[in-house]
């Protein structure tokens, strides 16, 4: 616990960790927003969520290798993943929308395995990053460094999330999506093509994750097996916040980001992932205890 003493003796380090946590937390929240959307509308927990993020990262890398700015990777990843999400829906997901949740869990688990291994075959398992070429901000007499790309990613994550939120509130399709999530049968009777709504929802989620992945590869790093932790984080954020609670998703996302930074610093970076999974169990147990008091189960 040497690092704990360090934190107490140099409080400014806390600021550094907190800020680092907030930057990445916004990206967690973005992926969680998508998971909540698919979960709420289609009643599917998409285990392949993190793999969409990972794919978005690799697409951005390809954009950069083609000599373009990695920033263009954001729209590129979103578009490619939108198409991929749509295709996945048309080939696989539509068959399992009304099925038991266990079937959709296993099927999306299969999709996630397939995508991990596919990327591993094509790109190898190296850790990669897209150099943005941006510099650093120095605060508090150079005690706190802030990478400009991380700030940019943070801002963009919020902008993308806000845009999607406005889209869901205002547009025709957004209204159809919300109607379907509340009562698919009623929506169908009222003439909403719920099949198209599902396809759009799944594709929008994929696009959202793709954009998040583009931010991840620019500000952080990516490899074929990076997806699973993102899935777990999204899930954790959604159960902390509840479905359809955007404010909660943002708060939980930022909180998780910060918690991970502190845990990584205190326990050592090699245990950061183990910490994420442990935290998931803690969160689930906490939810269970809250619900038990209300005579309910986590379901």
């Amino acid at each position, binding site marked *: 616990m040497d690092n704990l003493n360090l934190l107490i003796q140099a409080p400014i380090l806390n600021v550094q960790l907190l800020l680092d946590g907030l930057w990445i937390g916004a990206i967690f929240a973005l992926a969680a927003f998508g998971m909540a959307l698919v979960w709420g509308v289609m009643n599917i*927990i998409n*285990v392949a969520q993190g793999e969409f993020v990972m794919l978005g990262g690799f697409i951005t890398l390809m954009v950069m290798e083609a000599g373009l700015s990695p920033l263009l990777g954001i729209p590129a990843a979103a578009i490619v993943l939108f198409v991929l999400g749509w295709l996945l829906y048309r080939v*696989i997901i539509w*068959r*399992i929308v009304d099925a038991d*949740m*266990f*079937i959709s*869990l*296993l*099927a999306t*688990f*299969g*999709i*996630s*395995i*397939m*995508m*991990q*291994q*596919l990327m*591993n*075959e094509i790109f190898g398992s190296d850790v990669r990053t897209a150099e943005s070429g941006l510099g650093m901000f120095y605060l508090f007499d150079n005690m706190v460094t802030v990478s400009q790309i991380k700030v940019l990613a943070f801002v963009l994550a919020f902008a993308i999330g806000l845009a999607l939120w406005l889209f869901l509130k205002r547009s025709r399709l957004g209204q159809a999506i919300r109607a379907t999530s509340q009562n698919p049968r009623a929506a169908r009777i009222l003439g909403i093509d719920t099949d198209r709504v599902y396809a759009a929802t799944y594709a929008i989620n994929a696009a959202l994750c793709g954009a998040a992945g583009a931010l991840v590869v620019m500000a952080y790093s990516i490899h074929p*097996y990076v997806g*699973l*932790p993102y*899935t*777990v984080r999204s*899930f954790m954020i959604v*159960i902390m916040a509840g479905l359809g609670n955007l404010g909660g998703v943002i708060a939980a996302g930022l909180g998780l980001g910060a918690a991970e930074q502190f845990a990584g610093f205190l326990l050592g970076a*090699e*245990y950061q*992932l*183990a910490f*994420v*999974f*442990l935290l*998931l*169990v803690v969160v*689930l*147990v906490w*939810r*269970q205890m809250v619900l038990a008091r209300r005579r309910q*189960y*986590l*379901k």
Partner: protein
Amino acid sequence: MNRRLANVIAILALGVIGILGPWLFPAHLSQFSKLWLFIVLALTWDLLGGQTGYNSFGNVVFFGIGMYAAAVTQVGLYYPVAAYTAAKGGGTEFVFDVAQFYTGLAVGLPVGGIMAALAAAALGMVILGMRGHYFAIATLGLAIAAGELAAGWEYIGAGSGMVTPTPPDTIDTTLLFYYLSFALAAVTFGFLAWLYSTRFGLAINAIRDDEDKAEAMGHHTTRNKVITWTISAFFLGIAGGIFGNLSKFIDPIDVAFNGAEVGVWMILMAILGGKGTLWGPVIGAAVFYVTKELFWTYLLGWQRVALGALIVIIVVFFPQGIVGWLKERWPERFGPSKEEMEAADAKGGA
């Protein structure tokens, strides 16, 4: 009666093949040892996944725990474990004579099973109170977390892994581990066949069909789920112990907590054969293992991609699995027959 007879014949045939294995396929004995272990993996996954309706993505954790616990016990009975792992298991000072080797196995394998079962019970009490999909996601990261913890723990060799005790030259270990694997598969199968015939079997099926109803009828659903997972982990832990010895070397991520391979395989084998049936996992494991051995090399690294695709295809297009399909196709031969049930309860009622 003919279906009962067919069952008996199938079991006898498998038993004879199992016992005569060393003479039937002497060149592939270690592959067949693994096949028996794979049958155990599929059967134990199905116990919770198929019969109880709770998909676990993290059962490989118990496989790994059993593997390490068995190896540590085998070593720890005679040498300080930390020194052994620090020396990478090599060196002339860590020699096991025949008695020591057999004793180590006799103690180590049950310890492996027990440690895995304890882990499942502890973990289950925490995460089996919630419903299936939450449980499923909660298990998703278990293998990774366990692998990282094992890779950071110096006592068991950390990232550089652990060598299992080297057997004395006089022991034919291929034969030994073949029969151990076969015996474990036979015992697991027999135990589960019996378990599914008890009221406990019905109780876990009730959870699969409608957990709310089971709860409303006063079942101890959480207790039953935890017990189910614990039983599953016990056999899985022993399988892990044997597998570790068979592999001679335990790498934390590539052997013990190998979620991307073994962890996926056990799920695939169970659903391929038919979830929630006794024979399904056995058939699924055999079909999968033979296919894997035949085609693995031709896929040149793409096999893991194919596995993911295979899961999707089976779950979406062939969810009933081989045995489920047989039951649908020829219900008179494989489905439940009325006469038999009546005969069965006439016997029980008398």
